[in-house]
């Protein structure tokens, strides 16, 4: 023991006087090992601790503190009590002693044996005797650590201190500058808030002492060993500031203030902090500040964006505009505010800019704003947000429409549409002015894109504001269309051309505006008048123009709203008028051939068919039945009573064989088809048996192609809809018998007619899965070997697989089963392959063509799965000299090559070998299609195609100099991709 005390004394001596710091460790070890107690150490330190020299006392306390740092866990409660009393007392000593005292106290705060009440007394002394901010960095850290330690273990006691604790802390950290200490201080503050310490009257003080660091501005020194980041500080501080709604009244003004900062990071931090706090705050916390916040935010968004909107080169105009538009969509009120802020500046900008591209950009921005205002409008809206700007916006739009720059005009039309769609925004006078502008453009504007936009705009506006179109646009267009191009014989071709183009625009505009029944009542008479003038020659219209008038009628029939009124209009006016005009033309053509009305032209009749079929397919059942019986009685019985301008002879027989093989009446059968084949299936066609037999007769005997084909299609259309049963079966069998007898007689003059009827009936039966269909396919297959009809039979497969717009489609209410193509393919592909193998060399192309016609029309998924089985045949087809076969094979290969099945990859060599010769084919389409296939090959797995690279590149050099530009551009694309294969940066 004596030895120990000597040892202890020498340790103390060496540490205190000899300044050997390592002795502290030895002393601590001694205590731990039980060589001596802490009390003994204090005794040994006695002289040092009472020395008159402050540094000596400091040294003494330091030794004790360092020992405690190691051994705090082994102290008894009594010892701790004594030590705390000692240390608390030492806090009043000379300032050089304070640092080791704090170290000691910090060690003691970790003691589990801290006697009750000592934490409080420790802190009281600390707050009372120490001015923390005059301490050095490490000592300040020491104080914070003490607080943290005590908060962990003595929460209840500290809370007993009440607001004094908070006050003490506030005083301690007030003015702290070191980021490391700030992190500790923020953690304490956060604890105070989170764990519900009583803030008392010091709420604002606590907020002040922390919020003075907001927003954090800290750049860590280079090579900072502490690794504190700005972000860490920001997060910790944000945690404090947003931790309690009690801070709301202080924080929100601060955020509002900082949003005004010029420093972007400060703004950002403010916004993030705002986000964090609003998610915690309740309404009452926020209410008072909402207005200020909104102002700041709005200004923040607007100012920035407004700045970009006004930038001279408008580079950032879109991102800014989109931001603002998003804001517009948020609420009706937001759109009010944003529009009010942005519109004046946009309008002013537009008016001050002279460059068309800038003006267009601005106009596009305006359009988006108008649109976004619309999306944010509630369904029942009061005053439109934009009404304040109505005047200015209209004048901008109208001035842009008067510019010569086409993109500006186009943009203006879309702004006009958006404005018109704002309920109640535009006045009638605005609409009228708009209609005037649109009319002017329709009559004069030569640019196709502009006139397309104008037509679209007219259509959109007419749907909402029909009146102005009825009173102004339609009469004006009519007047202009019916004016003859000046002094016909002497006009320049260019003038005639522009007159034709004007009529063309007028015709499509008439169709576009006719969506509402009231407009249709006005526009369709104009179109019909075009047809009748063309027929009588009152005003000359070209065949093209007449066809366009029919197209417009068709478009109206398709788009008009389905009402009794429009149905009546088509049933009692348009369809009879069309039939009447066609009949007049046909009769005239017969009596005085050569004078030819344009209405006997096949092109015109074919254009009339869809007008009749679209309108008939949409008629109400009673009207449909009436229309059907009128048409049938006209064609079967020559009943012309329902036709207007009734001056027809009484013995009309449209379906009977005409004298001198005249076809002008017989071809009218296409109009019959348009009518009876498009009716709803519930409508019964009167005199169906007689009708079918006359159609059959006509299709098998007439020599005029349009006539016999239309008769065949009409027959097929009716067969497709006929109810299943014996009468249908016997009809089919009878017809087949007749067809076959013609086909089987090589000398027959109507083999082509018979074939046409057969293929259309086959189509009608295929669509409805009729069991007798197989009889017809067998015949069709046998015809592939026919010397004359073979190629036609091969093409027939394409007809079977295609959809038609005039007949046998779903909109004509035809019986079309789903996946009929797949069904046909799966039932017949094997037969084709068989037939191919058996065929003689000169007939093989027919089989290949038939196959590629079928495969071509299959959905891609089916192609991919079926291809492996057919691949060798298709590859064979590529070598077939027939260009049609080559082309259709290439076009079925191309889509499959984009996602090649394994079977295809294995055949790569053969594929390349067959494709390369085709890029020199005499047919341009074959060259193009083969180049596309070669292009697609470049996307095969690299290792598969790389061996062909050099060869393909060599082969592709030649078409680069092809005489056709379209071929060259395909070659360029393909060659570019093949160059990238296996090359760095390529593929």
């Amino acid at each position, binding site marked *: 023991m004596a030895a120990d005390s000597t040892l202890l004394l020498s340790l103390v001596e060496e540490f205190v006087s000899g300044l050997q710091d390592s002795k502290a460790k030895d002393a601590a070890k001694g205590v731990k090992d039980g060589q001596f107690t802490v009390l003994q150490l204090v005794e040994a330190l006695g002289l040092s601790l009472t020395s008159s020299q402050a540094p000596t006392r400091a040294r003494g306390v330091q030794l004790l503190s360092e020992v405690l740092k190691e051994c705090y866990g082994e102290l008894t409660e009594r010892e701790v009590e004594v030590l705390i009393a000692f240390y608390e007392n030492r806090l009043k000593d000379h300032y050089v002693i304070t640092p080791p005292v704090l170290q000691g106290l910090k060690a003691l705060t970790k003691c589990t044996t801290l006697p009750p009440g000592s934490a409080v007394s420790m802190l009281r002394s600390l707050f009372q005797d120490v001015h923390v901010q005059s301490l050095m960095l490490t000592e300040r850290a020491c104080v914070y650590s003490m607080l943290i330690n005590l908060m962990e273990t003595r929460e209840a006691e500290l809370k007993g201190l009440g607001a004094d604790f908070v006050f003490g802390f506030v005083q301690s950290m007030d003015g702290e500058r070191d980021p490391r200490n700030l992190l500790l201080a923020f953690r304490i503050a956060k604890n105070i808030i989170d764990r519900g310490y009583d803030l008392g009257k010091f709420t604002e003080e606590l907020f002040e002492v922390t919020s003075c660091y907001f927003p954090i501005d800290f750049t860590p020194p280079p090579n900072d060993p502490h690794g504190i980041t700005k972000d860490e500080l920001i997060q910790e501080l944000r945690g404090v500031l947003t931790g309690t709604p009690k801070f709301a009244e202080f924080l929100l003004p601060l955020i509002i203030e900082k949003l005004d900062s010029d420093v972007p990071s400060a703004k950002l931090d403010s916004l993030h902090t705002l986000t964090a706090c609003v998610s915690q705050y309740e309404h009452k916390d926020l209410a008072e500040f909402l207005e200020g916040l909104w102002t700041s935010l709005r200004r923040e968004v607007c100012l920035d964006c407004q700045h970009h909107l006004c930038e001279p080169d408008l*580079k950032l105009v879109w991102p800014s505009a989109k931001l603002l538009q998003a804001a517009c969509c948020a609420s009706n009120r937001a759109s009010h505010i944003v529009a009010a802020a942005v519109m004046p500046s946009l309008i002013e900008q537009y008016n001050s800019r002279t460059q068309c591209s800038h003006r267009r950009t601005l106009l596009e921005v305006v359009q988006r704003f108008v649109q976004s205002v619309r999306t944010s409008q509630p369904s029942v809206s009061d005053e439109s947000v934009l009404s304040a700007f109505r005047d200015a916006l209209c004048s901008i739009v109208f001035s842009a429409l008067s510019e010569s720059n086409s993109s500006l005009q186009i943009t203006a039309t879309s702004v006009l549409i958006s404005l018109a769609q704002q309920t109640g925004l535009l006045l009638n006078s605005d609409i009228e002015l708009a209609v005037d502008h649109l009319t002017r453009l329709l009559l004069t504007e030569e640019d196709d894109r502009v006139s397309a936009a104008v037509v679209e705009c007219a259509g959109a506006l007419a749907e909402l504001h029909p009146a102005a179109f009825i009173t102004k646009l339609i009469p004006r267009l009519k007047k202009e269309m019916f004016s003859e191009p000046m002094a016909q014989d002497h006009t320049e071709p260019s003038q005639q051309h522009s007159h034709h183009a004007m009529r063309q625009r007028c015709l499509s505009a008439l169709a576009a505006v006719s969506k509402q029944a009231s407009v249709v009542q006005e526009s369709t008479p104009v179109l019909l008048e075009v047809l009748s003038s063309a027929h009588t020659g009152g005003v000359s219209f070209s065949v093209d123009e007449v066809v366009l008038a029919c197209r417009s009628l068709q478009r109206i029939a398709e788009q008009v709203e389905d009402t009794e009124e429009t149905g009546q209009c088509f049933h009692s006016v348009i369809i009879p008028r069309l039939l009447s005009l066609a009949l007049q033309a046909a009769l005239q053509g017969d009596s005085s051939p050569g004078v030819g009305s344009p209405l006997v032209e096949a092109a015109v009749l074919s254009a009339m068919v869809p007008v009749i079929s679209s309108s008939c397919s949409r008629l109400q059942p009673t009207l449909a039945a009436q229309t059907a019986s009128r048409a049938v009685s006209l064609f079967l019985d020559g009943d012309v009573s329902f036709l207007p301008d009734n001056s027809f002879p009484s013995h009309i027989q449209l379906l009977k064989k005409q004298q001198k093989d005249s076809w002008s009446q017989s071809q009218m059968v296409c109009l019959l088809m348009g009518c009876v084949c498009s009716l709803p299936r519930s409508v019964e066609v009167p005199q169906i048996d007689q009708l079918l037999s006359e159609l059959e007769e006509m299709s098998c005997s007439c020599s005029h192609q349009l006539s016999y084909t239309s008769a065949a299609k009409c027959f097929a259309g009716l067969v497709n809809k006929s109810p299943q049963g014996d009468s249908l079966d016997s009809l089919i069998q009878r017809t087949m018998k007749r067809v076959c007898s013609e086909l089987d007689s090589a000398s027959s003059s109507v083999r082509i007619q018979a074939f046409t009827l057969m293929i259309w009936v086959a189509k009608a039966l295929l669509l409805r899965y009729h069991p007798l269909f197989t009889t017809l396919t067998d015949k069709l297959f046998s015809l592939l070997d026919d010397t004359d009809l073979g190629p036609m039979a091969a093409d027939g497969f394409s007809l079977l697989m295609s959809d038609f717009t005039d007949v046998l489609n779903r909109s004509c209410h035809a019986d079309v089963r789903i996946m009929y193509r797949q069904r046909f393919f799966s039932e017949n592909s094997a037969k084709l392959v068989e037939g191919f193998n058996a065929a003689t060399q000169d007939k093989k192309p027919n089989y290949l063509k038939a196959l590629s016609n079928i495969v071509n029309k299959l959905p891609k998924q089916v192609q991919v799965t079926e291809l492996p089985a057919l691949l060798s045949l298709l590859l064979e087809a590529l070598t077939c000299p027939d260009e049609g076969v080559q082309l259709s094979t290439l076009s079925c290969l191309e889509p499959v090559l984009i996602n090649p099945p394994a079977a295809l990859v294995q055949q790569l060599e053969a594929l390349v070998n067959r494709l390369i010769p085709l890029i020199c084919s005499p047919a341009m389409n074959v060259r193009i299609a083969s180049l596309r296939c070669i292009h697609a090959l470049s996307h095969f797995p690299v290792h598969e195609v790389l061996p062909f690279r050099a060869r393909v590149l060599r082969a592709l050099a030649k078409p680069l100099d092809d005489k056709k530009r379209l071929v060259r551009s395909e070659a360029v694309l393909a060659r570019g991709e093949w160059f990238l294969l296996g090359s760095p*940066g390529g593929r």
Partner: protein
Amino acid sequence: MSGGARLENANPVIFQRSGERLLTASEEDEDVHDPIDDREIFDLIRSINDPEHPLSLEELNVVEQVRVKVDDAGSTVGVEFTPTIPHCSMATLIGLSIKVKLLRSLPDRFKIDVHISPGTHASEEAVNKQLADKERVAAALENSSLLEVVNQCLSSRTM
């Protein structure tokens, strides 16, 4: 080549792309010979990607149709390109990309001349000389990292 983290011209002016060439009836006619014209050459190079920006040379106005001259009969092509800024370090690379694109896309009868629009670049002469020198172009394309960048410029973007 990567140009470091900072772009030399971070916010370039963007120009509108011209539309697709309109198809004419004569182009679809088998028997008509379509000569190679300026627009066709321009169409070859306008979609080349800029090495720095996700934009095409046309959108940056580096190439313009008026600066393309072709003589089909005489088998010569001349292209002037305009770097976005006079100190653009990418000028040579852009020129090389244009040249390579034309070499790959035109019949080999053509003599291809690619150079900087006069007065638009600080080291115009040096760049023009490099681009005109066949052997230096060939040597440049031997350099795989250079070829890689050129190929990236010539790859079709999937946007």
